[in-house]
Structures are given as C-alpha cells and as structure tokens.
C-alpha cells in the first residue's frame, strides 16, 4: 500500500472512531443526527425478576405442541402487558417445553406470579339493555348521595393531614386499597380522562382539593411522584364506587365459556380466499351456542380473554379497555360449528384462533425457576465490573508499553479503538444485552485482544535480532505470526460457538460478546496496528533505537 493510501485509511479510521465514541458516550461533541441508543442491561445489572415455567403438554399430539406452547406464551405476554411492566420479555426456551419470562425493574413478584399462573379465562359476552324503574333510579340516587357524603368526609380528613395510605386501606373500594391506594406509575392515557386530568395537575405530594368524579365513582387522588421525562407519574387514590344509574347497553356474560369450546383454527374461505376462523363447540357448548345465537341474531357477540378483548382492535399495539372484538351473529347456529369471517388478515385470524384455543384447552404451567435481583445490587454489580474493566484496560496498556516500547504504545492506541468499537457494537446490535457474564466476556476479550499483538511483536523482535531492517522486521512480524493468530482465533471462536449452541442464557451472553471480541481484536491487532506502524516506521521514529524492543 502506498503512503497516500495509508493516510486515507487512517483518516477513515479516525472518523469511524469519532462517531463510535460520540455514539457510545453522547455529549456536546455528538452530532444531533446521530441516533441515540442506550445500552441494554440484563436483569442482573438493572434488577428485576426472571421466571421459568414448565408447560405440561402431555396428551397433546406432537404436531400441536409447538402451537400450544406458542399459545401459552401469548397469554402470558398479554397478562404481563396488563400488569404494566416496562419492556417485558417472554420467550420459549428452545428444545424445552419451557417459557422464560423477564421483567426488568419488578422486584415484588408475588402479584405477578399469581397472575401468570392463573388459568386463562375465555368469555363470550352479549349486549343487554338495562332499563330502570323510577323507584330504582331514586334509590340508586339516594345511595350515591350517601357515598358522596362519606367521600367528602374522608377528603377533609386526608386534607387535614391524616395518613393517606391508612385512609385508603380503610375506605377505598379499589383493589389498590391493600397497598395503601398506590397505583404505581402510569402515563396520562393509561387512566380515564377525568382521573388523569386531576392527577397530572397536582404537585408531588399534593392531594386533590375536591372530589374527582369519573365513571367509576369518586376519587381522592394524591400524586406520590412527579412527572418524569417519559411522562410517567405515580399516584395513590381512594375510590368510592357508585351505583350505575345510567340506562343503556352493557356487555354481559353469556353462559358460554372457554370450557365449551372444543377447538378453533385459522382457515381460508373456499369461495373468497379470505382468512377465517373456524370454531367447534363440544356437545354442551353446541346447545348453549345455539341458544345464544338464536337470541342475538343481528347483534354482536364479544369475545374476551382474561377480561380484555381477544385482539387489539384499535391498532395501537396494545390491548386495553378501549379494544373490543365483537363479530355480529348472522344467523342461529346449530350443530356447534361456527365461522368468524370478515375483513381480517391472516395474522389476525391466527391470533384469534390461537387465543381461543388457549382459553379452550388451558395448558397447565408450573414455575420451575425464579430469580429476583434487587435494583441496588444490580447497579452495584454494574459499577464494580466497569471499574474493574477500566483498570484492567489501563494495566494492559502499561504492560504493552513496557514490553514493546513504541510498538507497544501503538497497540495501546489500537486497544482504545478496540474498546470504543466494541462498546459501539454493544449499543448497535439489538441482540446484545449487557449482563455480568457479558461484561466478563468483554473483559476477557480485552485480555485476549492483545494476544495477537504479542505474537506479532515477539516475532518482530526475533526478526530484528536476526539482523533484518526495521521495516522488513515489522512486515515479517505480521506475516509470519498470522498462522498462529488464525489458529488461536479459530479455537476461541469454536468454543464460543459451542457455548452458544448448548449454553444457557448466562453462557450465551458470554459467548456472544467473546466471539464479537475475537473478531474485533483481529481487526484492531492486525489491521489497525499495522497501519499505524507503517505510518511511523519510515519517519524519524525509526532512527530512535530506544523506542523499539530488542
């Protein structure tokens, strides 16, 4: 390579290093158009709970096991999403009938455990009209008036400084009463509008001065943590439920449940080629279904799983109270076989069929492993291991300079570049989650990254001793140590590959980062170091003999 080409390559390398650094460690030096990413930390470093459930699929035909497991995953994912965990992960463990659930930031998992382990509930609901007699209306009105009075009294006590949590425990009709009314953190659109408007208008620690009325009843709200950057606040409330006095239509359970459904599958309409869902009820279900359809011809029949719509119908990517899936009954259906058709995609039809099945034939699951890491411990581990890595890096650089003088210094520079690039890759590759194991792998790969340099420089020393000129010695050093470097990298990559194939998540995290480190170290030790040395050995540096090892 000519000198000009070398310089060009050096500039390219420096530009890449600058952007990598700006990406890894954002600051005023970061151009605004550069994408912003955070490191992804594993549960051991940020705290949280991970659970492994074993699914009991005995009795199912081999072909359906995969589907059934997929169904369990789907149901659990829905539940965790309702639970409001940020970035949960539910994955099927390959080769085993197991589900891995990771919930970052969740440290009290009793509640989550109870919810995940429950049997899925599939409900079919019909629309009913509620009509009230004037006497009924009057009595409801009277009752609600009494409730309002009590709410006013409690509000006065709360405003007077009485313990909010205790009041909530005593009076609140909300299930949150047990936790002193705490609702956890939520965003504006997570709650009904009247509630959010009042809660977000408060200051941290402040209590609403008036009762807040919503469709649920009267709320006394206390904001317990102010709004953060992502728009979350935390609040507690005391709820006084009121009787609904409004006439109108309500969704009411039919006698039909998941128990009556034999199976459900996605299919294609022979005529139109559209995706459809076929339902088959068992004997008892067929009769019930006949009754239900008979009295609801032309009316919608809503399908609920775990109390919420079976699929996301609003298209906002999450299932909540605003979703409703209710196909219209075309005709009375006898014989227990039904088809849901209409404008739906293949994916949607598959989702509906799978969820219907998981409600019809619940797969029993058993908790087989559980690990919870406290947030403080996680943060501590992260700090400590990063500290160790930084010192280790510094020590290696010093050792290399002592061993090999100028070339050692060059390899130290290459090592810094190696570290910056490695960190940038950690942020860039979405599959990489930093765990203790991963940091261990990264630290080890820093130690191994200099291995190639050591091989090259030792060879270079030999060549110098045998009387070769400096530039010849450098070139030979790189060339002749290549077979050893190649063989060594292969063995490490091979081991990393085996770990990846057969390992648990700890080993995998380690193997992935180690493998990445090996590749990157080849780049830094051979390409980067050679480039930097080539740029230097023809200049003044060559004449200064003390700079070179002998």
């Amino acid at each position, binding site marked *: 390579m000519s000198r000009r080409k070398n310089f060009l390559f050096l500039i390219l390398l420096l530009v890449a290093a600058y952007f990598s650094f700006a990406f890894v460690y954002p600051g005023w030096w970061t151009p605004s158009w550069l994408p912003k990413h955070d490191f992804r930390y594993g549960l*051991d470093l940020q*705290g949280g709970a991970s659970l*492994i459930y*074993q699914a009991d699929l005995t009795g199912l035909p081999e072909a359906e096991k995969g589907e059934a497991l997929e169904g369990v995953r789907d149901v659990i994912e829905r539940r965790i999403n309702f639970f409001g965990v940020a970035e949960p992960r539910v994955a099927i463990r390959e080769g085993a009938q197991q589900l891995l659930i990771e919930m970052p930031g969740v*440290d009290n998992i*009793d509640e989550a*455990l109870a919810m995940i382990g429950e049997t899925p509930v599939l409900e079919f609901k019909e629309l009913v009209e509620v009509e009230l007699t004037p006497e009924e209306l009057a009595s409801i009105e009277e009752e609600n008036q009494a409730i309002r009075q009590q709410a006013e009294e409690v509000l006065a006590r709360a405003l007077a400084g009485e313990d909010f949590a205790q009041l909530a425990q005593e009076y609140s009709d909300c299930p949150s009463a047990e936790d002193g009314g705490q609702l956890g953190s939520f965003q504006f659109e997570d709650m009904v509008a009247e509630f959010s408007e009042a809660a977000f208008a408060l200051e941290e620690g402040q209590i609403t001065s008036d009762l807040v009325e919503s469709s649920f009843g009267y709320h006394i709200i206390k904001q317990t943590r102010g709004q953060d950057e992502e728009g979350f606040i935390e609040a507690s409330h005391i709820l006084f439920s009121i009787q609904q006095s409004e006439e109108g239509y309500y969704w009411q359970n039919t006698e039909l449940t998941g128990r009556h459904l034999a199976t459900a599958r996605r299919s294609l309409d022979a005529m139109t080629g559209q995706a459809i869902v076929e339902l088959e009820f068992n004997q008892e279900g067929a009769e019930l279904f006949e009754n239900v359809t008979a009295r609801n011809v032309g009316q919608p029949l809503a399908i609920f799983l775990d109390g919420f719509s079976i699929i996301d119908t609003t298209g906002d990517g999450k299932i909540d109270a605003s979703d409703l899936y209710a196909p219209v009954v075309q005709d009375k259906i006898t014989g227990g076989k039904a088809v849901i058709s209409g404008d739906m995609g293949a994916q949607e039809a598959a989702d509906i069929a799978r969820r219907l099945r998981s409600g019809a034939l619940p797969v029993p699951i058993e908790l*087989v*492993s*559980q*690990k*919870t*890491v406290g947030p*403080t*411990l996680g943060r*501590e*581990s992260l700090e*400590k*291991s990063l500290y160790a*890595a930084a*010192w*280790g*890096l510094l*020590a*290696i650089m010093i*050792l290399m300079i002592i*061993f090999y003088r100028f070339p050692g210094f060059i390899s130290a520079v290459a090592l810094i570049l190696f570290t910056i690039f490695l960190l940038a890759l950690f942020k860039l590759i979405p599959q990489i989650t930093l765990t*203790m*194991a991963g*940091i*261990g792998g990264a*630290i*080890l790969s*820093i*130690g*191994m990254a*200099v*291995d190639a340099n*050591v091989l090259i420089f*030792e060879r270079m020393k*030999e060549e110098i*001793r045998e009387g070769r000129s400096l530039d010849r010695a450098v070139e030979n050093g790189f060339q002749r140590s290549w*077979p*050893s470097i190649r*063989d*060594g990298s*292969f*063995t490490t990559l*091979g*081991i*990393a590959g*085996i*770990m990846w194939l*057969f*390992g*648990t998540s*700890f*080993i995998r995290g*380690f193997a992935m980062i*180690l493998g990445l480190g090996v590749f990157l170290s080849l780049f830094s030790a051979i390409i980067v170091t050679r480039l930097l040395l080539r740029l230097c050995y023809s200049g003044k540096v060559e004449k200064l003999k003390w700079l070179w090892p002998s």
Partner: protein
Amino acid sequence: MALAILNMFDFIRYRKWFYLLSLALVVVSLFGLFSWGLNWGIDFRGGSSIYVEYQNERPAISDLRSELNQLDLGEVEVRTAGEKGVMIQLTETLDDELRDEILLQLEQDHQLVEGSYEFENISATISQDLANKTQRAVFISILVILIYVSWAFIKINRPVPSWQYGLTALLALIFDVMIMLGVFIFLGQFMGLEINVPIITALLIVFGYSVNDSVVVFDRIRENLLKGVGRDYSETVNYALNQSLGRTLKTSLTTIVVLLFLLLLGGSTLYFFALALIVGIISGTYSSLFIASPLLVDLYQWRFKNRN
C-alpha cells in the same frame, strides 16, 4: 542455521521431572475428588438461595445459622459473601412466605441494605436439564478441539502423525481440567466456591486458551520442521518452545492482570469466575509448555524405537 536464542531452557531434557510434578498434582486433585468431592451449586442440584447485604456490621454466621435452623428449613447453608453480604442456600425451593420469614430473621438485629438482594429458586427439572446441557457442551468442546487440531496439522505427518498433535493437546487439556477441579474442590472446602454455570463457563474458556497455547508452539514446530531447524525432532521442539516462550508468558500475564482486577474490584458475582480463569490460565500455560509439546517427543521416540 544460526539461532539467535540465548539462555535457552531445555524443556526436553528436564521433561520427565515435570511429568512427575504434573502427575503428583493430578494425584492430589484425584485424592481431593474422592475424599471431598465437588461442591455443586444450586444451578446443578436444585434448591434455593438468598443473598443479602448488611448496611453496617454483619451478624455472626454461627448466630444466623442457629436462628435459621429453628425455622425447620431442611438443610441450610450460611456463609459470608463479599464484604458485607451473606449467602444462604437451601436444598428445598422456597415460597414467598418462607422467604419473608427468613428475611425477617436476617434483619432482626442488623439492618439490611435496601434493594441489595438476590433470590433464586431452581427446581430439579431445571437443574437436571442444565446438567445435561453442560455435559454435552463440555463433551462436544473436547471433540471439536481434537478434530480441529488434528486437521490444522494434517500437512505435517512427519516425523509424528498429525493426530498426535491433537492427542497431546488433549492430554494437556485433561491435565488442566484436573488441576482446575482440584482447586475448585479445595476452594469449595475452605472458601465456599460452588460449581455453577459461571465456573463451567470458565472451564470451557480455559479449554480454548490451553489449546491455543499448545497450538502456538505446534505452529512453531511446523515452521521449524519446514526450515530444517534442529538436529533432530527433540531439538526442533525445544527451539519452538523457547521461541514461543516470551509470547506465551506475556499473553498469560496480560490476561491474568485483567482478571486480577476483575477479581479484586469486580464484586462477588464474578469473583470465583475470575479466580477459576486465573487458575486455568496458569495451568494452561504450564501444560502447553511442559506437557503437550514434550509429549510429542516421547511419542516420536516411542515410534522410532518400535520401528527398529
């Protein structure tokens, strides 16, 4: 050809002494294995663990032990972990109630650091599964290494057949495993080290490291053979060992230094992981210098003798 190596160490001449030393170390390990056995962690045997950290002073372990024994938990192990931590392990899995009861006992007189804890429950299903997977990973690693080394040296069938390079590298590896197991047994007895997933990971890494060290010397032997360095095979090997000595020692040293920092500053999770790696790397360096390559000479001489 003139060789510019001064102060050569004659690995080949003294090799029998080092064989003896190696054998003695292996015997000690085996003795420990049969008399004490390995201290398996809950990863592999199932059970539960609770780790907590104390704010100031940590209560005496013997006190904690006797208090916890009153709770009727079956077999309970209590020991210190890190500076202010306490680790409790049970052979049974724990439900929330029992765990809360234990926590209550733990913070009776001494305050715990909030949020600084770790709970783990591992049922027999999982631990059995893990043990099977691990066995497979270890077995396949060894197989792949053997095949790889034989294949890498397939071009040098003289004066020893290429598979013998694989074989001696493997023998060095077995030595490393024995040494590491010996150290694990010893640390398990006196420092509470447990064979868990991180320790197995360290073991697999040492496989790669040790073979890598042997391969670097083999590469040098191959080069020397092509150049015709040395009057006979044993001299060729000895030159190769001396030529790669600087590299082997320096690479090990740099890696060990990083691991030392991890050991001293990295916190309790990776403490034994780093320690296991340090032991393995020292052993791997030793075995590649004093076992793998010298054994090649023995295999060669044995073949030579049988032919005549």
